[in-house]
């Protein structure tokens, strides 16, 4: 992708400050996450030691995530979350922490701005470098760390993303993704419209366990890409018509949507011939999806690993850890340039810390 805007953003390569020393030394970074419904503060080291991970999740009373209300939640809990994380870590913030990392995007603008403001203030007040972290990259890095994967194919599924990617030539490259709405979003909206509650994935899955009959729904795989909007529209239409049991509909939407993801994952695995597959993101908690992918990996003799539940959803620790990796390579951003980036694709980010 030819995307020039915002690419010169980084100070590239090693040697911006204390290069040699920084490369050999263990760095401790405090990370702040606020891209969507979670406000999180984590502290982690560059070698992958997670010191604390404190998160506060905004749960809408009704409907989906409203960006403004989520942002209000974040500003309310920000001080308390930060305090709790620092107390728990028993670190001296002035001496022990080498940098402040923040998820600058992608995500919802109002939410991002809360975390970014806090991070900027901290960096300025403590005179520490500010490290820009891409939220999606953080999901990848925490998954690789916790599953001990070296060069995996990564399936990132959540309420905001459905992407299949792998590392190649300095960056994570996208092999397949959704052409419209993400997997989590599809199931969430289905659940919400039928009054099954939020978050929708566990709710729909629970009902789906009682389903027996498979109903044919739109199954859209285009090469390595998937599309969920037709599936959602059709499932909702059938639900309103009321001709089918809700259990069967839930079973069928789950079955169809997950099969699409597993199929493109399988294609990517066959195409890239990777030996490992790692599942990450909020929907990684789904036992049904895990089971399907595990069975698929067995067919291809690939190792299947999934990020632990604690680090599946958005969290501060993943931002801290990815920030620490970036800081090792001198990736920082001047405060006055640290705008939030609601749109920030995975392929735009240089990954100097992955060695081949």
């Amino acid at each position, binding site marked *: 992708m030819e995307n020039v805007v915002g690419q010169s953003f980084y100070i590239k390569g090693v040697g911006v400050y204390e290069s040699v020393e920084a490369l050999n030394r263990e760095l401790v970074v405090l990370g702040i996450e606020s891209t969507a419904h979670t406000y999180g503060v984590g502290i982690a080291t560059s070698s992958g030691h997670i010191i604390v991970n404190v998160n506060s999740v905004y749960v809408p009373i009704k409907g989906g995530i409203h960006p403004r209300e989520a942002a209000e939640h974040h500003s309310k809990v920000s001080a308390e979350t930060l305090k709790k994380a620092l107390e728990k870590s028993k670190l001296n913030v002035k001496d022990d922490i080498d940098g402040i990392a923040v998820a600058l995007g992608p995500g919802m603008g109002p939410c991002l701005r809360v975390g970014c403001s806090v991070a900027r203030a901290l960096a300025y007040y403590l005179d520490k470098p500010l490290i820009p972290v891409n939220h999606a990259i953080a999901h990848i890095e925490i998954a690789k760390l916790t599953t001990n994967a070296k060069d995996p194919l990564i399936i990132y599924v959540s309420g905001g993303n459905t992407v299949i990617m792998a590392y190649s030539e300095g960056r994570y490259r996208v092999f397949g993704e959704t052409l419209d709405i993400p997997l989590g979003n599809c199931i969430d909206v289905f659940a919400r419209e039928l009054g099954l509650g939020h978050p929708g994935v566990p709710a729909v899955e629970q009902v789906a366990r009682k389903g027996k009959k498979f109903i044919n729904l739109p*199954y859209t795989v*285009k090469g390595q890409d998937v599309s969920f909007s037709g599936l959602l529209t059709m499932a909702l239409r059938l639900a309103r018509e009321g001709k089918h049991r809700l259990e069967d509909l839930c079973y069928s939407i789950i079955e169809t949507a997950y099969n699409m993801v597993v199929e493109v994952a399988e294609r990517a*695995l066959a195409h890239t011939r990777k030996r490992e597959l790692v599942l990450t993101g909020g929907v990684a908690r789904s036992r049904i999806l895990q089971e399907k992918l595990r069975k698929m990996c067995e067919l291809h003799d690939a190792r299947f690993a999934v990020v632990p539940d604690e680090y599946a959803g958005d969290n501060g620790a993943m931002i801290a850890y990815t920030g620490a990796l970036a800081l090792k390579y001198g990736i920082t951003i001047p405060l006055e340039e640290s705008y939030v980036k609601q749109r920030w*694709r995975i392929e735009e980010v240089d990954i100097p810390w992955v060695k081949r």
Partner: protein
Amino acid sequence: MENRRGRHTVGEEVIGIGAEAILIKAKLYSFTVIKKVRVPKSYRDPAFDELIRYNRTVMETKIMIEAKALGIPCPSVIEVDPHEGLIVMDYIDGPRLSDILNKLRRSHLGRIFYTVGKYIGKLHENGIIHGDLTTSNMILHNDTVYLIDFGLSYYSHQLEDKGVDMHLFLRALESTHYSLSKFLFDKVIKGYSEVIGENEANKVIEKVKEIRIRGRYVKERRKAKSNLRHKE
């Protein structure tokens, strides 16, 4: 594997486990053939599994025969049994393009991708969308490129579908051969426009651009959308 159809084959040897099918190399009389078997997947509901395997086997067979008739180098269908998800076809001997791409000279690559562009143009002109254009699905045999795996192919004359087909090919090039991708894709476009005409090709290229910015978190999206609105 039960050997109901294609029962005269001998010396079977599994040469590949693809995403949805197992490829078995075997001898049928004096021919070397490939048996492509869409095996049931344990992770799917059986009713769903049966349906998808049947439909795809029928569609793949139809389109392979038609592509062959259009003069596109691809395997010939010898036998088919959709209930078993089985297609028996010619064996194309040679390396996959993805495996030897880095070893070939630039000028040679240019020629190859120009030809590939022509093939795609020919398919699109006749309303066939390959659906899975990657360098792993191209085999170099006696200096001729063979298109294989029509497993995701379908019929369509819509610009959108042609655009998606091209977009997927471009993305496959970018994700596996990043540094060469622009050069290669330009050659593809050259061959493509020669077949379907500059005008039509430009429309498809415009569509590819539009599809790209439809992706999630693409920065130009908002700007491009407002530009489009201005044009209207």
